[in-house]
């Protein structure tokens, strides 16, 4: 094999999360009563448009979660030597972005460097001027052609994107149209938004995404569309890599804390007595420590551990990954308490309900009552918390990285990009593109997550149901 698969800890957890999400989806699809609230979510145009955006982020994040080490050479026919560098599928797809490193900063779409350099001409003259970039716009013979070149390529990419979109819409119509319905009728129905599921909103969003992606695909190999950072790395590539970090923090944290919150919350409410006292004491203690400080304390301890045990980590990627996982764990510890409290309160109410009393009277064990009767009835609370927490966690990552207790400084994350932007904003002329890029990518994800979670909450919260 020309490569060796590498499973980082967070990768494994992501696969686990993906598997459980798929299992949950299949389970939901087969049970009518679970499908009802989801159908309500599916009727909200805003929610479905957000879902499309979220799906794009998730696909990028998943591609960045398949890691491997490329083969360097084969020694003595049998022994294979693999690179120390861990790459992902996304890295492979964006090789042009990753390897085209400039010397230092350059503005978006620039063909010349950000700072002046002394250039020596063949005839021996020296001059201070902005040198051409090694890669950005290198295909242009004359820098003045840049505007026309970009316009031409944008137009071409947009047309390709629209063409692709039209083909997919046609494919969709073929599947969607009733057997007796004409193509025109189906298209009109789609255009007017006359459908239970807001297909119009979904397809408009997909169209926008396709056109943007086509533009990025056609322009980014030739220019640095979001500029380059201090060491000349493409900012667009860094933003793409940051997606995984954001998603991991937002989802794995929840995955980590969910079992604790569910088991302890339900146990506290169900058994009451000393079990309740112990669990309540535990979460009150944990929640009374200010979150940032607890995280800081824990990350500091981890830093000391990593610093004293360098032999346990083979590569920088692995070290950064452990830190990311640990951050998820500690964020989980600080955030499980509120869910636990909610679940305890709900279980306290549920345990007095007739069907639970009946289950007990019929001889069901405590474990089976909790798992089969209580848990499904508090599922909506868990679900609402999970989706509502997501955007908060993505935002928290940025703040924590800024404070210095977030992800590893070598890891691509929006927090680290913002952190470095602080100094860049003070430069003259202002280096604004790192910040802008982090803003755009982060805002897209968080806004989509917020809009989607609103719809989920409205659909699942019994208090809001009419």
């Amino acid at each position, binding site marked *: 094999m020309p490569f060796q698969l590498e499973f980082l800890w967070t990768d494994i957890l992501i696969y686990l999360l993906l598997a459980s999400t798929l299992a949950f989806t299949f389970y939901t699809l087969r049970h009518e009563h679970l499908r009802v609230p989801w159908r309500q979510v599916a009727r909200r145009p805003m929610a479905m448009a957000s879902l499309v955006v979220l799906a794009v982020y998730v696909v990028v994040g998943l591609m960045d979660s398949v890691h491997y080490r490329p083969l360097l050479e084969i020694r003595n026919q049998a022994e294979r030597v693999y690179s120390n560098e861990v790459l992902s599928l996304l890295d492979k797809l964006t090789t042009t972005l990753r390897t085209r490193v400039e010397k230092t900063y350059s503005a978006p779409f620039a063909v010349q460097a950000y700072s002046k350099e002394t250039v020596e001409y063949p005839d021996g003259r020296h001059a201070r001027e902005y040198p051409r970039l090694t890669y950005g716009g290198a295909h242009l013979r004359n820098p003045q052609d840049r505007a026309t070149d970009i316009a031409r390529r944008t137009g071409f990419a947009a047309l390709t994107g629209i063409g692709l979109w039209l083909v997919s819409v046609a494919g969709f119509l073929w599947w969607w149209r009733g057997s007796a319905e004409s193509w025109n009728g189906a298209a009109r129905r789609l255009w007017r938004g006359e459908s239970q599921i807001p297909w119009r909103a979904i397809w408009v969003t997909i169209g926008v995404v396709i056109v943007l992606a086509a533009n990025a695909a056609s322009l980014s190999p030739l220019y640095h569309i979001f500029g380059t950072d201090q060491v000349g790395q493409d900012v667009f590539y860094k933003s793409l890599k940051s997606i995984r970090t954001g998603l991991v923090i937002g989802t794995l944290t929840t995955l980590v804390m969910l079992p604790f919150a569910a088991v302890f919350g339900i146990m506290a409410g169900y058994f009451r007595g000393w079990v309740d006292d112990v669990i309540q*004491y*535990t979460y*009150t*203690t*944990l929640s*009374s*420590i*200010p979150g*940032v*400080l*607890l995280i*800081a*304390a*824990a990350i*500091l*301890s981890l*830093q*000391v*551990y990593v*610093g*004293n045990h360098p032999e346990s980590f083979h590569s920088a990627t692995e070290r950064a990954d452990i830190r990311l996982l640990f951050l998820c764990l500690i964020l989980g510890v600080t955030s499980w308490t509120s869910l636990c409290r909610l679940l305890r309160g709900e279980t306290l109410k549920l345990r007095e309900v007739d069907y639970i009393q009946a289950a007990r009277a019929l001889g069901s064990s405590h474990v089976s009552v909790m798992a089969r009767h209580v848990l499904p009835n508090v599922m909506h609370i868990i679900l609402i918390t999970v989706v509502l927490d997501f*955007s908060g966690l993505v*935002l928290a990552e*940025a*703040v924590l990285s*800024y*404070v*210095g*207790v977030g992800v590893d400084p070598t890891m691509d994350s*929006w927090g680290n990009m*913002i952190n470095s*932007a*602080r100094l860049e*904003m003070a430069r003259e002329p*202002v280096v604004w593109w790192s*910040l802008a890029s982090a*803003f755009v990518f*982060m*805002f897209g994800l*968080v*806004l989509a997550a*917020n*809009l989607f979670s*609103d719809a989920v909450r409205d659909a699942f919260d019994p208090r809001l149901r009419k």
Partner: protein
Amino acid sequence: MIAYIIRRLLYAIPILIGVNLLTFALFFFVNSPDDMARVHLGGKRVTPEAIEKWKQDRGYDKPLLYNPAGAGAGKLTDTIFYRHSLRLFVLEFGRSDNGRNIGYDIRQRMWPSLAIALPIFIVGILAHITFAMLLAFFRGSYLDTAGVVLCVVMMSVSTLFYVIGGQYLVSMLLRLVPVSGYDVGVDAVKFLALPVLVGVVSGIGASTRLYRTLFLEEIGKDYVRTARAKGLSELRVLFRHVLKNAMIPILTGVVVVIPLLFTGSLIMESFFGIPGLGSYTIDAINSQDFAIVRAMVFLGSVLYILGLILTDITYTLVDPRVRLS
């Protein structure tokens, strides 16, 4: 009432003991003092003597929990746990890893923290309630919809962007106020104006939306219909009846943070160069000063628990139905 407060304060003791044990475990069991010394002295080529000296200077050379060499009560008191953790209960914070008196630093830095956190808190609440009232007044109209959309959009922007954007726009482009710094007395105003503005604006999205939901929940209730039936004007209904009743859930979220205002805001203070407890904590984190972080964790917990007690007391003041017992 007083009996209740005393009981609540007594309940706080086991929780604080828990916090204390937890931080102790985190700082001394996960990493031994030797590890800390090595990190501080830097590198692998640290001599055992240097480590011993580092520990001795800071009093970390004692056993963790039990000292068999001590005499009498010294078996328990001549330990790291007693000297570095239990002392926190009487707010004796000891010395930081680079030798400064933490208690003195905290007392000094508390006031700049308060100077920025208190205005943000007060102006913030007033502004957010006003905006929420406005949206509730125009509920169902385009203004309301636009307002809610704006709230969601503003919620989706990280605080860091507000800070960096505000600094760039107001300080660097318009040159209205200095970028960062702090001064005592009247001069402080020009340094505090921007942080307060940024603090209030960054909170608008989430708070306004939450308060609007709370107001709308109250507006649907019977007593509001009665008030309208009596012929009260909409404004009177909103301010005299709805606001008063919606205050109860608002207070839950708000009163808790009052004591924590002392510890300041990590981000604001470090961005705007205000010498408060927030930047103190960040500096301690960056220089890996465990003693300061430990002290701040404990102080934060004490203040948080105080906030919870305050919340319960406020409940009785605003809601006559709640009787503390």
